[in-house]
């Protein structure tokens, strides 16, 4: 165990962005996760983002096989994993080459010199060794023979083969970074002890290497001082670091418990949504029925069956999967059953960019079905609030008897942030429309007068036997009806039912300015990027720029136009070609909207946003 007793001067930093990169077998995700966890427990606010290749295990040393993990920690509020990095840890030449562009000039790069062999340099398509040709002269490069030092540290540990020894070199790097940022190694050593209980030699090896890295950095004169990032001012409470997909899964667990219903998931594996399935299958002890179906259509139709039978039913997917679910989603809308469809958006169209992020399924979610087929569409905006929006999606589906599409995206689904743990006791009540006894004039399409939700009679309930289906039905009896006026009535009541959800969702508010020259508008997973960019320009004196963010898309919050009308210019920022702007124009056709769109499979960068904002208020 190592505690920091260095008497060197500590430079106090507000925030720092560190990126660990290496081969997909180098353990970069683990290294990053450990650093994030340690920092969180120290009290920092954090945001993380893993970035790995879409191949399972690309050839070693290749440019497209680089796996990375970025973490942004701070004593101030952190809302994104950040774009420019302060410290790059590169375990091989390919990692250096593909990530160098992100390092701020003058900042630090740590490399494992043992990995800069002729063969690896060739694989990374370097014509000369960047460590020798002065191409890195704008950076502070710390060259460490990590692989040899790791081997040296472990020469007296018995029972380890060469491969296991080399594999621990990521811990050498982590040890160094812990020293540089004044972090304790305790959390990670605890992790070894819990993770490898049956393999004491692995615990010993990892602990030794981690400490070796820590001591090496302490004695190395190349690192003149170390840095401290003070704890952030976060609301008191119990926290954990949570990934967006895990938070989504847990939101449904909470909703099931609160509503007293069993949770049914029908799903088919697809990147990047699959981790929700992976998480929910673990929780059979809560009565979760997670069914891996034969295809996307069986995923959603099994969920429709489960909804008919009285479960809280959900299905999870990503872009192309939502396309396949379209017909069934229309059925769920038509039979007015509660169902949550999670779409973790990825780069499209078609197979597109499966491991990259985008917001381009919005119009598919809104309109991707035959006929007039309105459903509720909502979007989460941070890894941790995926919990709240999954919960809210379930609540809206059950209370309004309709499918709800919950949009997240690869960026927030794979990213993680601190989550102030919410006890189920503190979550809002979830009502449902279950009818358990026959009453005079009972019909399956009898509606709640306020919400227009139909009553939900579940198989197994005596005297409420009834048939539902995709064919148009009589407004009262629910029997098949082709009467023209009835179809028009039913089309309108289904639309009105969704419209009335406006009365049950919060209004939007603005941050930084309530009126002014420019309103920055975003939705879903771009919250962090937009919020921190507006915050920055505000701190630079542009106090006439406001920010509003949408989590509710269909229906839109009631006061949308009212909020917009207080600003001279409105800029809608999206990671697509302008889909939310289209929806706003459909709803408010006189609104003049400016757009800022990025379609690169990447999140917004801070500088591109701040430049745009400033230019518009000049």
């Amino acid at each position, binding site marked *: 165990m190592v505690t920091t007793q260095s008497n060197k001067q500590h430079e106090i930093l507000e925030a720092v962005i560190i990126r660990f990169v290496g081969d997909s077998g180098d353990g970069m995700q683990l290294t990053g996760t450990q650093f994030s*966890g340690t920092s969180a*427990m120290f009290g920092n606010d954090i945001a993380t983002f893993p970035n790995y290749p879409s191949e399972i295990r690309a050839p070693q040393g290749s440019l497209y096989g680089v796996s990375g993990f970025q973490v942004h920690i701070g004593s101030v509020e952190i809302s994104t994993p950040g774009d420019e990095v302060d410290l790059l840890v590169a375990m091989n030449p390919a990692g250096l080459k593909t990530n160098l562009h992100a390092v701020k000039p003058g900042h630090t790069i740590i490399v494992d010199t043992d990995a800069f062999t002729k063969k690896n340099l060739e694989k990374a398509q370097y014509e000369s060794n960047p460590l020798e040709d002065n191409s890195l002269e704008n950076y502070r490069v710390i060259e460490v023979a990590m692989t040899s030092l790791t081997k040296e540290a472990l020469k007296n540990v018995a029972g380890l083969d060469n491969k296991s020894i080399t594999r621990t070199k990521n811990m050498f790097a982590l040890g160094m970074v812990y020293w540089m940022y004044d972090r304790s190694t305790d*959390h990670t050593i605890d992790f070894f002890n819990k993770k490898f209980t049956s393999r004491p030699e692995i615990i010993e090896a990892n602990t030794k290497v981690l400490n070796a890295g820590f001591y090496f950095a302490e004695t190395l004169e190349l690192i003149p001082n170390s840095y401290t990032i003070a*704890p952030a001012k976060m*609301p*008191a*409470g*119990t*926290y*954990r670091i949570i990934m967006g997909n895990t938070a989504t899964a*847990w939101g449904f*667990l*909470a909703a099931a*418990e609160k509503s007293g219903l*069993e949770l*049914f998931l*029908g799903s088919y594996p697809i990147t990047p949504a699959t981790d929700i399935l992976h998480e929910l299958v673990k*929780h*059979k*002890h*809560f*009565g979760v*029925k997670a*069914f891996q*179906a*034969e*295809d996307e*259509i*069986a995923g959603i*139709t*099994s*969920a*429709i*069956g*489960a*909804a*008919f*039978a*009285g479960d809280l*039913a959900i299905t999870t997917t990503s872009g192309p999967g939502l396309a396949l679910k379209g*017909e*069934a989603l229309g*059925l769920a809308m038509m039979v007015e059953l509660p169902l949550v469809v999670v779409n973790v958006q990825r780069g499209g169209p078609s197979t597109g960019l499966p491991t990259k992020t985008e917001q381009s399924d919005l119009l598919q979610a809104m309109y991707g079905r035959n006929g007039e087929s309105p459903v509720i569409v909502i979007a989460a905006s941070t890894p941790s609030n995926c919990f709240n929006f999954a919960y809210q999606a379930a609540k809206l589906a059950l209370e309004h008897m309709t499918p709800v599409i919950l949009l997240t995206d690869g960026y927030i689904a794979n990213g993680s942030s601190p989550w*102030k*743990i*919410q*006890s*189920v006791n503190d979550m809002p009540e979830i009502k449902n429309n279950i009818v358990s006894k026959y009453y005079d004039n009972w019909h399956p399409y009898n509606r709640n007068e306020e919400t227009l939700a139909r009553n939900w009679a579940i*198989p*197994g309930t*005596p005297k*409420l*036997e*009834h*048939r*539902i*289906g*995709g*064919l148009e039905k009589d407004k009262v009896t629910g*029997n098949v009806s082709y009467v023209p006026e009835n179809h028009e009535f039913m089309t309108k009541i289904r639309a009105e039912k969704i419209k009335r959800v406006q009365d049950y969702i919060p209004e939007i508010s603005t941050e930084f300015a309530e009126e002014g020259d420019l309103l920055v508008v975003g939705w879903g997973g771009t919250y962090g990027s937009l919020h921190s960019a507006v915050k920055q320009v505000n701190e630079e004196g542009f106090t006439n720029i406001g920010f509003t963010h949408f989590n509710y898309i269909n229906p839109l919050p009631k006061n949308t136009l009212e909020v917009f009308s207080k600003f001279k210019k409105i800029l809608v920022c999206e990671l697509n070609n302008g889909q939310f702007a289209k929806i706003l124009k459909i709803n408010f056709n006189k609104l003049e909207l400016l757009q800022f769109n990025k379609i690169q499979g990447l999140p917004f960068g801070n500088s591109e946003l701040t430049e745009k904002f400033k230019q518009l208020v000049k």
Partner: protein
Amino acid sequence: METITKKYTFKDFASDQEVRWCPGCDDYVILRAMQKALPEMGINKEDVVFISGIGCSSRFPYYMDSYGMHGIHGRAPAIATGVKLANPKLSVWVITGDGDSMAIGGNHFIHVLRRNIDLNIILFNNEIYGLTKGQFSPTSLVGQKTKSSPYGNTQPPFSPGELAIGAQARFFARIGGNTPKEMTELFIEGQKFKGTSLIEVLQNCVIFNDGCFTQFTDKKVREDKQLYVEHGKPMIFGKDRDKGLVLNGLKLEVVTIGEKGITQEDILVHNAKEQDPTLHQMLVRLEYPMVTGVIRSYDDVTLEEREDAVTAEVKRNSKFHKTDDLFFSGDIYQVF
């Protein structure tokens, strides 16, 4: 299913909806057979659920006074799977046609059989697309002239039973659309079977494929052309009960009792409960006689039983009882 508390007649299962199939359609026979079978099954009416896809047959749930869902093309097995997993106490029936389950729903059809979830599937096979007005289906014969094959169908057909057994169906029965008594019995057998039961009804389409099974099902020839098998009984057929099946090498052969020294003892005895499906497949494939009755009924573990076992084990070993136990477990930390 709970023990029955009420006594029903077939009328209890007839809904108030006017039945709208073509006059003379076998679907009426199937509907009545089901309405007669259900009161015999000892199930409360509120526990019965019919799920269908799209097609003439798939209108069936509307005519039953039970719970039901008219779903979408080919997806009834998947919807039914969700219903059954959500509430294993329900008696869940899938109503489907050859177009619905062999074509657009082929994938769900094979997977539901593979899993052996406790559902009952009634497959209305009329070797044609009826509702879309007369195109060939995946069971139509080669050379069959239809609206979409004016010069004769060039796509070789599936045999539903063969496909089903290939997909690990544990229960397969077949029956002519004009034999209500046996059909009623098979529906009861299907319900009793723990696992997915598949009952294929050779159903005539009076409009687009009239007479498609007459060669086996016509009352005049039925006894000579059909072999109605029963577990534990010799496979004998014919008006004079003198024809039977024997195994000749790797092929089934029709023999006549009393000829060439063949006696009743030489005739194969039907074993529907055999795990090895080889002989069942041969019976399904046989062109003469057309084998009807319960061809395969092999008792196996169901999906629900496997799920229950895993869930019980997980529950026993889990330290989580409420979601809060999970949320507040592992790497958590305090901010003051």
